[in-house]
């Protein structure tokens, strides 16, 4: 049985997977069936239309179709989150393995750096950088979210590696004459994969929220490109008069984060058929 199958067997995990699959499908296929998110069909006659058959979630203050924008926003928000997390996890795993396996001053230097970085709130770092930039390109945003997101992962991986190093099978590989590369690839990484997957999944939720927060402050994804947080930012003035404009992206954020966390928790509870 694969980890995916076991997550599916978990009730929460299955719900999370279904919602995620739904969101991803929507992001991939939705734009084919829906109106152009940039179109402003009746800008002249009326904006902020409530939901109708033509605009299932209504239109916004620029008369754009909200559903189209939520769906296109899903592409942006989800790919920013996934990209940033993949970058963060790669960095974190790399640093964690090196620190845990090399030990000594390498470990000390890396971990003190991580301690220092963790002492500064991430949102503060992000605000500092984004606020100084005029317009932040999407790639830079991914980079930024990734580079500020690996500290916790590196700690987790390091402590796992330290635990594994004390076990005889790592010593046994050394005794067989395995070099550091092989020990890391064959013996350490496969055994940190599970906690790493859990951490990764949960981090995706965090980053969706972070990106939404930044965009909501006008510091993340820049209009007119739709992202969930950015949509809420743009909809602020109409919160009372046209609640659908902010509600739709809000619900999307909650659903995505919830789904990701459900999957993460199912993965965390799963022992992968290994003995306790």
């Amino acid at each position: 049985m694969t980890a995916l199958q076991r997550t599916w067997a978990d009730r929460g995990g299955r719900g999370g997977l279904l919602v995620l699959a739904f969101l991803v499908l929507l992001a991939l296929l939705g734009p084919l069936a829906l109106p152009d998110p940039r179109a402003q069909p009746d800008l002249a006659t009326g904006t902020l239309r409530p939901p109708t058959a033509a605009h299932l979630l209504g239109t916004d203050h620029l008369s754009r179709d909200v559903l189209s924008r939520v769906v296109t926003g899903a592409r942006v928000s989800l790919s920013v989150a996934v990209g940033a997390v993949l970058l963060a996890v790669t960095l974190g795993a790399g640093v964690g393995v090196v620190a845990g396996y090399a030990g000594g001053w390498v470990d000390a230097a890396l971990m003190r750096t991580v301690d220092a970085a963790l002492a500064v709130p991430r949102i503060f770092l992000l605000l500092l950088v984004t606020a100084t930039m005029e317009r932040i390109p999407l790639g830079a945003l991914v980079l930024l979210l990734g580079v500020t997101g690996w500290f916790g992962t590196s700690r987790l991986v390091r402590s796992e590696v330290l635990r594994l190093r004390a076990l005889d099978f790592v010593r046994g590989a050394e005794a067989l004459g395995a070099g550091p590369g092989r020990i890391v690839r064959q013996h350490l990484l496969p055994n940190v994969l599970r906690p790493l997957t859990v951490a990764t999944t949960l981090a995706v939720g965090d980053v969706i929220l972070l990106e939404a927060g930044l965009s909501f402050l006008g510091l993340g994804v820049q209009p007119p490109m739709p992202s969930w947080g950015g949509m809420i930012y743009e909809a602020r003035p109409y919160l009372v008069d046209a609640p659908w404009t902010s509600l739709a992206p809000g619900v999307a954020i909650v659903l995505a984060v919830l789904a990701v966390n459900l999957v993460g928790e199912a993965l965390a509870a799963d022992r992968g058929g290994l003995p306790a």
Partner: protein
Amino acid sequence: MTALLEVRDLRIAFPAPGGDRHPVDGVSLTVAPGELLALVGESGSGKTLTGLALLRLVPPPGRIEPGSSIRLDRTDVLALADEPLRQLRGRKAAMVFQDPLASLNPVLTVGEQVSETVRAHFPVTARAARQRAEALLAEVGLPDPARRYAAYPHQLSGGMRQRVMLAIALAAEPALLIADEPTSALDVTVQAQVLALLDRLRAAHGMAVLLITHDLGIVASRADRVAVMQAGRIVETAPTAALFRAPAHPYTQSLLAAIPRLPRAAGGAT
């Protein structure tokens, strides 16, 4: 005397390509209060799985087949709901696992692991639990228990870890102790101390022991009865003396014939 443990027709299935495998295939045995039943047999014959099944700890995807029956102190173990099952584990029956290092938690000190078990089963303060844990570690013959309380599993020798496992199993004062190779890492003098402790607990509290072992010297000197297992089945059960005198099954005979023996000592040792 009524049996404390009564296992009938226990079958354990593991899914495998081309149909289920049954590493335990129709095991029946009984253990009376205070009795020591030795379970011996081929490596891979299903002894450990049988022991795990008694606590419903068969690792998934393995499962106990319908038609099996395990009665422990008149409770139907296989019918228990989760909560009563948790209470049964430890208190009615506890297990000493075969692989100490793999079964101990690497990030907790061994003392914490013993006192945790004490607190899980008795309403005592943390301090009382700690004292009890130290006493237990002393009883199983761990030298300098007060200090080793704070040691992590990897800081102990193999035999010390084995004694810690035993202390954890004894912490809840179980009616039945399932001990899977509990002395394989102990030298004969420490081994004798540990076995004497089990004898005392059997005499004082009527604790029953299901002792899984390969050491036929221990079997000969300590067991009341012996069950011999091969390929998932029990092929012979007999009182110890009778089994050693006249083994009935060919496998038992070959086993007894393979026992390595010490050379005759000049001065009468052995």
